[in-house]
């Protein structure tokens, strides 16, 4: 081994830290066991409760962008060159406005989830100049509390926003936050400090397991992973930007779901997808989960793959210096089995730029609206000319062993008029293409029923004036 074993260097709260722990070991364990800082809590170790939330700041074009993440799912390697913020570093001589209002408004009872909430709220304030109560509450969707019913927490957010808005004018957002005591003053010097860190020094042993955001792998087998040296994907070896290249939108395999939501390119061409992607996990998960990871995971009920299938995504798979392109619709072979060869990585995801008269809709039915796995989900993308469908893609999740592109249904829809008859027939064909099984998310019958309802919903939502539901009902009676 190299003599210089301390390969991971980062800013731990206000101090530099270099460590030789395994790059695949878990950040939460490092914080609690190595550093003995116990404000960060372990509640579920699978990114569902937010008790272990921390902020990770990354230098991007001169500014530090802070993300809320679940430290139970973050490998230490991803800390290099970053600023780690735990609840302890927010503590100043007096409480921050967030801490104060949480205490004052009954936002804490047993207190176990509280540091995680304080971190997530602080993350919201760091990331948003224009503050909005509903948006702020959305950003807390990944923190669960069993005591308070969230009412006191919501009041605390509301009051904190008022405190921020009533604090004096400052030349920039960060200065204003520091002046109003939301974060300590050393945050000011963080960009300069992070700029001085070099790329990781020592070469890592490369194993055959790749870890992207780790939001599924660290749930499945953190104990196994944390002991070993694994090649961990990050911005340095796989692209994470989202850009326009010719008539294709290119999404780097390392891009996170939240990057997708925030991307100007995506906003421009798929303005509604942001809302749909809000149903994809919580903010801390979206901040870590990668697009490529979601595809490789091949979950039959994945929300993102369901969407990408109808958008006719292509994948560029890379192995060493060679690469090849494959349509996502051909990528899923069987349950959790994909066309990916050993050591191949998804470098880019390519989406055709949508043409005129492009329509898209996504529907998901789950027990809990947010942060839940769907019973059935479905996406549709259509290109129309006047009242006619020129091109169609429709997908269904949770009804087969793979994320399913409904080939026959899509083919049927091509060149049809947007009409009640078309919708009814399309739904019938879709039901002939699926093979749902009864499981925790519903019986096969229920899933069939849901898919039909979702296909109807797609058209009723996209073409309210063209589809006459009364005719749909009456027509059915006549048949």
């Amino acid at each position, binding site marked *: 081994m190299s003599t210089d074993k301390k390969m991971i260097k980062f800013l731990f709260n206000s101090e530099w830290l270099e460590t030789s722990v395994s790059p695949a070991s878990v950040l939460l364990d490092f914080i609690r066991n190595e550093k003995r800082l*116990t404000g960060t*809590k372990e*509640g*579920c*170790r*699978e990114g569902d*409760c937010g008790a272990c939330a921390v902020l990770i700041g990354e230098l991007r074009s001169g500014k530090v962008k802070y993300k809320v993440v679940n430290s139970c799912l973050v490998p230490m390697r991803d800390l290099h060159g970053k600023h780690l913020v735990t*609840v302890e570093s927010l503590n100043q001589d007096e*409480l921050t406005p967030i*801490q*104060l209002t949480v*205490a*004052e*408004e*009954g936002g*804490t*009872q*047993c*207190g*176990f989830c*509280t*540091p995680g909430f*304080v971190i997530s709220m602080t993350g919201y304030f760091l990331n948003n100049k224009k503050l909005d109560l509903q948006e702020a*509450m*959305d950003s807390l*969707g990944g923190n*669960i*509390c*069993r*005591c*308070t*019913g*969230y*009412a*006191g927490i919501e009041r605390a957010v509301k009051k904190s926003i008022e405190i921020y808005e009533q604090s004096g004018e400052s030349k920039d957002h960060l200065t204003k936050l520091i002046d109003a005591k939301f974060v300590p003053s050393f945050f000011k010097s963080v960009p300069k400090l992070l700029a001085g860190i070099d790329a990781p020094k020592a070469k890592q042993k490369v194993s055959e397991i790749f870890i992207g955001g780790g939001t599924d792998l660290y749930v499945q087998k953190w*104990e196994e992973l944390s002991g070993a040296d694994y090649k961990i994907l990050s911005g340095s070896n796989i692209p994470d930007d989202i850009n326009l290249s010719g008539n294709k939108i290119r999404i780097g395999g390392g891009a996170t779901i939240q990057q997708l939501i925030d991307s100007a390119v995506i906003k421009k061409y798929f303005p509604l997808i942001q809302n749909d992607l809000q149903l994809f996990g919580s903010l801390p998960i979206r901040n870590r989960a990668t697009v490529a990871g979601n595809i490789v995971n091949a979950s039959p009920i994945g929300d993102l793959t369901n969407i990408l299938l109808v958008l006719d995504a292509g994948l560029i798979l890379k192995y060493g210096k060679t690469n090849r392109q494959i349509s996502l619709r051909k990528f899923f072979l069987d349950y959790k089995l994909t066309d990916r060869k050993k050591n191949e990585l998804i470098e880019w995801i390519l989406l055709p730029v949508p043409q005129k008269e492009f329509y898209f809709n996504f529907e998901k039915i789950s*027990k*809990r*609206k947010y*942060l*839940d*796995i769907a019973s059935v989900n479905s996406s549709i993308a259509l290109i129309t000319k006047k009242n006619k469908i020129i091109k169609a893609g429709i997908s269904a999740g949770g009804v087969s062993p793979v994320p399913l592109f409904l080939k026959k249904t899509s083919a049927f829809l091509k060149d049809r008029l947007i009409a009640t008859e078309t919708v*009814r027939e399309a739904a019938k064909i879709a*039901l002939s293409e699926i093979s749902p099984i*009864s499981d*925790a*998310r*519903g*019986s096969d*019958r*229920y899933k069939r*029923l849901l898919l039909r*309802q979702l296909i109807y*919903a797609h058209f*009723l*939502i996209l073409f309210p004036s063209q589809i006459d*539901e009364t005719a*749909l*009902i009456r027509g*059915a009676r006549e048949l």
Partner: protein
Amino acid sequence: MSEEFSVVGKKIIREDGVEKVTGRAKFADDYKFPGMLHAVMVRINEAHAKINEIDFSALENEPAVSIVSASDVHGSKKVGMIKNDQPVFCSEKVVTPGDVVAMLVGESESKLRSLLPEIKIDYTPLPVLTDPEKSLNKNSVLIHPETGSNLIVHHPLRKGDVEKGFEESDEILEQTYKTQLIEHAYIEPEAVVAIPLGFSEGIKIIGSIQNPFTARKFVANVLNYPLAKVRVQQAHLGGSFGGKDDTMCILSARAAVAAIKTNRPVKIKYTREESVLESYKRHPYILKYKVGYNLNGKIKAMKIDILADGGAYASMSPFVTWRSVVQASGPYEIENVQTDVRAVYTNNPYTGAMRGFGSPQPIFAQESLMDEIASRLGISPDEIRRINGFKNGSVTATGQILKDHDVNLKKVLDVACGNTDFITKWKSNRDQKIFSLKYDPSNPILKDNQFIDPPENIRKGIGLAVSFRGCSLGAEGIDAASAYLSVQNDGSIYLDCGLAENGQGLRTTYSIIAAEVLGVSAEKIIYLELDTGITPESGPTVASRATLMGGSAVKNAAEILRDRLINLIKEEFKLGGEDVISFRDDLVFSRKKGLITKFTDLCKLAASRGINLSAIGWYKSPKVDWNEENGQGDAYFTYVYGCQIAEVSVNVSTGEVYIDKVTAVHDPGKVINKLGAEGQVYGGVTQGAGYGIFEEVTADNGFIRELNFDTYTIPTSMDIGEIKPVFVEGKENYGPWGAKSLGEPTLELTAAAIANAVSNAVGRRFYSLPLNLEEIILNKKLRPAGTKRGSSL
């Protein structure tokens, strides 16, 4: 009666708020001691099996690993809250998958976990009993053969003559209801550290323990130590809701056995999966109701048969089901009642105390039934409850006359209906054009004419539920509490009570009470950590008894000290015996002479005169009584009343249910801690809503499928709409200034109110919880296999 309060009922910040928002509050897993070892559990992957041999030989080359098992237990090998049927370590057989046969103890927790697969256990599987309805069959396997039966307990109640009542009724309705197994889902998993103090001093336990005195009893029994040699200190408790009692007592005992054996501090810390696997849960109930009523709405007779799945151990089942037998016919005056509540053993996860404690299940049944009767009679839900509901002087099913307090049932109902415009909304929802959702099993697809377009898919519903609830332990057992209060020379104050903080904020409530009596600000009071070595025992923090019992003890202690100070003042300032001395704003006043002195100066004076300014306050509950044979008696010394109204949106094409608003009207007596009381309502309603629409632990042959929060979904901040707490403060003879109970009433009503609201939305009744998706659309559980259901289709 109008009493002026200066602290009581005001918004006071939690006394531990600062510690908690800064992350400085220490929870059990945050404690670490020099030389501390970790312990991990050895289990058998079976729900019911006879253990033949456990082969630890693979660990022979691991000298740093100690094995701890039943042979290391020198005291009681079996423990339990009521019956001693649960082994600390199983040595003969396991009766549910959470059972522990041994522990590995060593330096590194991850190393120990990696050794678990090396241990070879030879066992013989036994027949697995999972259906409580088969539990009492003659040929069913006995879970605990030494008991001779799978019956844990049977509570009968007989009032009047139900058969005669049915004969006199115009109509009779029979329904079966079914409620599900659910998990407490406190966010902090279990953790405990046992620290050996040497033979003469005994052992110290620090843990996420709901009831330190119960844990002390368990540890002392298992170690065969006198109580005084076991000191239990409570760490900050990361949520409990009734759930960190037996489980934590047993974990404390296991850690203690290991600490004594290794002579090192030993920590046990559970993962979420282990927590869900081993900890006890809320009882699933099967409730059969037969009710006779007249066309004028008057209920004549009610016959109730309830079966509770106690799972593998008795735990608190006898008490949980006792509350059910008292309250099963609801807050209604019924001449003839016959109730039988039984709890039985199965190989399922065991069930015990959980916030609500045997009330949410019958409330779901009885409130569904009342709405159904109202609908059959063509009257509104509030009307049927007005006709039958308790009023002052009513006689309960147990034959108790309700007196000495305001029986506020109708008042909470009126306030709730008034607040929500209930009648108007209920009628307009009922008269919505409802598409038939009748399901034809031969054709799983809805007919096209059953599809409604998205905006029309959403149906609004409103529903209400009412309850009465006995306060504190009732005839379950001895009910008394104590508090220690010590005023220092400078006027600062120490306070402690034997009832343990569970996160709900009782320390703040107690500080408010002491501050009110002594006329000081609540911040002046330093609340001491509960330590069984110092604090007087007060029974457990359960049954929504903390404010009522502990609060009364605190008030008593404060009044003792105040009276000593009054005597001193009268002497020193030569005030007449008839003068009235009052304490407020850190000052002391005489009615005749006005301001006398500052509180701080008075304390200094008292010290200089050698006055004892420390006191133990005590409160013992009034007498209750119970006849086990016929379920008659004064079950609780007082009651609280509540009404919740839920407003929901139901998507009738998918079965999704959204909760738009819950209005919660409660009569908790005097509200002492305003912020805390409102917090109880928000939290209780949210938990109740989870019970109503999301939460269910399903077990497959005894094995739990939902072991973490990805599958066990509890409400997030995005899931529940507005919650509106309203307090109706009734007059009460007992409790500090008439304060009684609130924590559990807030939870027990919500699922029932939601069920009635969903029925109002879709025009159909439901008989099983939780209510969502497939349950709404197809009258089917999401988990299909073998799940018993209530009346259906």
